[in-house]
């Protein structure tokens, strides 16, 4: 009888230990850049569920998601590409695909993962399932013996990827509808030193920010025959450029209410552009040099963080009023912000204070504080369904 009871107890226990079924729509990752780990987080419970370790050098790491929201592809600085299973909280696959890498993207159909590399300069495309290399596209320019660092890689409709060549001043669009035989369209002389790029939420326009000169390069992907054109070419005229202590990031775009909000490089301003004409319609003074300028999903607010030495603050722009309405101090060295899928709250990483702070975006009240080791990027699975993320 006793043994029957203990068998029964064991059966009951193991039944309880079986993991409960759950979706991944409210999960995400926080990059812990110094320790080579990622924290798996739940943005409904505002909790850290666990950690996955052994991802290498995660300085400047970023993540894209499989379209089922179960797997994260983490691109590390050291060329590591790690496929992380969010549900089992383990590494599903990991390869070292380059010497020095800066990020990546996932294709429209979710079957291809592309990595953009500094060293060797170019783009590599992998099977999202197996991480098998399908295409290697070196960013050769000039006499063909030089290779450019690649920046601003974004997925665009048609299973294409758009990206910019920092050293060459070119934008390339790679069509991967036949993954092992990519077709390239090259836009030359687009401007000096493109440092990052973005695709608009509808997938129509690709914009690269320029470091070497004022303005940005714009391509209408619906009319590629028109070539690249320069927008905001004189936003810095007559003013001396401030030194830039950190390159702005264009990815994580802010397009809201027919306007694009862009970081003015070397200035304490956010530029406002009409997306119908691509002409400047305003400038909003902010506390420092913007790094990320991100729209809340409904477009009512734009959140901005800053480069060293103003990086302990975050400012909020109201898009109706076209001015800063709130300044927050979440902690030292704010590196990234991520909105919950519908934007009622925002998660902010404060690297030097080793914490992630969650704010209510309506009241600006602090909702939670989570411990993390030198947190940088925060990435929620809702990115899986968005063009350019």
């Amino acid at each position, binding site marked *: 009888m006793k043994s029957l009871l203990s068998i029964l107890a064991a059966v009951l226990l193991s039944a309880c230990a079986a993991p409960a079924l759950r979706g991944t729509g409210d999960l995400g990752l926080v990059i812990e850049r110094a320790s080579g780990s990622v924290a798996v987080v739940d943005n409904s419970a505002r909790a850290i569920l666990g950690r996955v370790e052994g991802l290498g050098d995660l300085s*400047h790491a970023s993540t894209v998601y499989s379209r089922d929201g179960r797997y994260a592809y983490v691109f590390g600085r050291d060329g590591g590409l790690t496929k992380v299973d969010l549900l089992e909280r383990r590494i599903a696959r990991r390869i070292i695909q380059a010497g*020095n890498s800066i990020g990546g993207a996932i294709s429209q159909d979710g079957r291809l993962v592309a990595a953009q590399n500094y060293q060797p300069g170019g783009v590599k495309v992998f099977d999202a399932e197996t991480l098998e290399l399908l295409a290697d596209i070196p960013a050769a320019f000039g006499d063909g013996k030089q290779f450019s660092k690649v920046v601003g890689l974004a997925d665009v409709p048609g299973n294409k990827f758009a990206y910019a060549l920092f050293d060459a001043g070119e934008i390339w669009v790679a069509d991967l509808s036949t993954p092992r035989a990519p077709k390239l369209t090259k836009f030359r002389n687009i401007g000096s030193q493109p440092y990052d790029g973005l695709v608009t939420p509808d997938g129509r326009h690709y914009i690269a920010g320029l470091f070497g000169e004022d303005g940005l390069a714009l391509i209408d992907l619906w009319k590629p025959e028109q070539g690249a054109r320069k927008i905001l070419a004189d936003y810095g005229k007559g003013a001396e450029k401030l030194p830039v202590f950190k390159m702005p990031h264009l990815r994580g775009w802010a397009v809201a209410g027919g306007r694009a909000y862009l970081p003015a490089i070397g200035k304490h301003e956010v530029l406002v552009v009409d997306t119908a004409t691509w002409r400047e319609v305003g400038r909003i003074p902010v506390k420092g040099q913007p790094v990320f300028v991100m729209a809340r999903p409904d477009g009512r607010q734009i959140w901005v963080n800053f480069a060293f030495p103003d990086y302990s603050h975050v400012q909020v722009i109201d898009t109706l009023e076209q001015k800063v309405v709130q300044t927050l101090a979440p902690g030292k060295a704010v590196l990234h912000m991520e909105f919950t899928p519908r934007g009622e709250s925002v998660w902010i990483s404060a690297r030097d204070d080793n914490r992630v702070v969650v704010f209510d975006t309506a009241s600006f009240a602090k909702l939670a504080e989570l411990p993390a080791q030198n947190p940088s990027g925060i990435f929620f699975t809702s990115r899986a369904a968005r063009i350019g993320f």
Partner: protein
Amino acid sequence: MIRFAAFCLALLTPLASAAADPSAERARELVRMVRQDCGSCHGLTLKGGLGPPLLAESLREKPVESLRYTVLLGRHGTPMPPWSAFMNEAEADWIVRRLMEGFPEETR
């Protein structure tokens, strides 16, 4: 002229190397600044990114003075900004010398 330049160098070099090392606390701050803030372009491990690598082997052939002034004044035509608002000459010199022998890790 060359002799004059050598004379100036001779004047400069002992000055710089005779400068006191930063305090332990300031040294920790400088190490963190290099790893984290310089690291946003040069990489946390200093293997390079948008900016070139800052590893001992990649700097070996370069003169200390020119590196020191690159740190303080930036490098025109590249994204390298001047850091002179955030450190003095002796501290820039200390950073360059540490870089050339292999930069220390952050201590917690």
